[in-house]
């Protein structure tokens, strides 16, 4: 994830990020995307639905 990637992604969501902050955001986002990659490597059954309901 580069500073330029951050600039482009931020433009997509309409979020201005000044140039001097892009490196820091890129570093944090890289960490989050690494976590996402490790998460998505785990094969979930196709019938698992997100549903934030908690029962005993």
């Amino acid at each position, binding site marked *: 994830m580069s500073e330029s990637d951050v600039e482009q992604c931020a433009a997509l969501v309409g979020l201005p990020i000044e140039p001097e902050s892009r490196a820091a955001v890129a570093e*944090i986002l890289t960490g989050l995307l690494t976590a996402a990659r490790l998460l*998505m490597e785990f094969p979930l059954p196709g019938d698992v639905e997100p549903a934030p309901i908690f029962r*005993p």
Partner: protein
Amino acid sequence: MSVLDEGASALEIAGAVAARRGSARAVVAAALDRIAKRDPTLNCFTTLLGDRALAEAERIDRVIAGGGDAGPLAGVPFAVKNLFDVAGVTTLAGSRIYRDNPPAGRDATAVAALRRAGAVLVGCANMDEFAFGFTTENTHYGPTRNPHDPTRIAGGSSGGSAAAVAAGLVALSLGSDTNGSIRVPAALCGVFGLKPTYGRVSRAGVVLFAGSLDHVGPFARSVRDLAVAFDAMQGPDPLDPVCAERPAEPCAATLERGIAGLRIGIAGDHFGELADPDALQALERAARALGASRRVVFPEANRARFAAMLITSSEGAQAHLDNLRRRAADFDPRTRDRFRAGALIPASHYLHAQRFRAWFKARVREIFREVDVVLTPATPFPAPKIGAPATTRVADVEVPMRGHLGVFTQPWSFIGLPALSAPIADPGALPLGVQLVAAPFMEESLFRVAARLEQDGVVAAPVASARP
């Protein structure tokens, strides 16, 4: 012990006030004196409500003098994390941006519940900005200092609430917990902290951080105080869309039941790795006292943590997107770029994390058919220094100093399970906690185990006295 002392429990105070052996006014005045003496160092409070608290205490004294019942927490001074609405006070949520907001029109449901029970609100407590952190190193309002060692963090994000109870400034406080923000500061400050089941206690009137993960709960210095505070707050509330319709199930009356019949296990794998030996020894001490030896493995707990991080970052960023666009310079530099990064997480990742959550919840639910309470360390190490480096080494692995504080708490809040952090007695130089976890809505089991540990002297929360 006098009920004016810093170490008086909530129930000792309430008992004395109800029996007119002491006045609520004197109790609250003593709390305000302690705050005046110690808070300039500790920085637990961002707002003090001295005059209001004294007036409220006088009202309680009048009710009792007139033969009325002022409630089970009559005259007990308490504090709330400054993301709870308090009528007439601007809700800061640790931010500079919200300073511009008008005062809240009414109390948050949980605050109102404690006040109905007779407790007296003395002030609002410091926190990480918008609850995004485990340290309460707030740039706008300064760090809250750990009462056991003021060079160290109190933990977070409910650091001011935990430290105020640990220092004996108040007997009770309220915090919120998205990934560990009650349990982490409870452990680092050496007090009891409860994160109830998701939906058990109303969050109405609370500034949310990541709505699908947010909980509110109490801090106290005894199990019974914690239970009475929880009982005063639990139950349905139409003002919170996620609050369960399940009726309240009071816990204070069950503390004497002991642990007979409860199956207690020790969480293995993830929960026994990447922690300091002291934290693991504290856990073993609690397990031995309970006669628990069975290791219980929760599959993919580390991935659960990753998923919680993604959901938290996405939902948190969404909640503050407008201000990130318009007022980025007014954010705390410690949170601003983390919120921005969260805004850039693809929706596919967020949804995969939510699907993983459903899978993990189902697996853990099966495990809790075979066990009632599981023990883990609350944090992997004791309180770091304020301003400590970004990383540290644990078990020869480099980990983020701040983020790693939630390594053992995040997997449980991720799926809404109730969890209680209990401070191990005589831990050494700094406090450490053991975390008790149960199936949804089984807080009673947590309280029964915590009560046994307290009765046996394995966990305890003495006041952290001022250093000379």
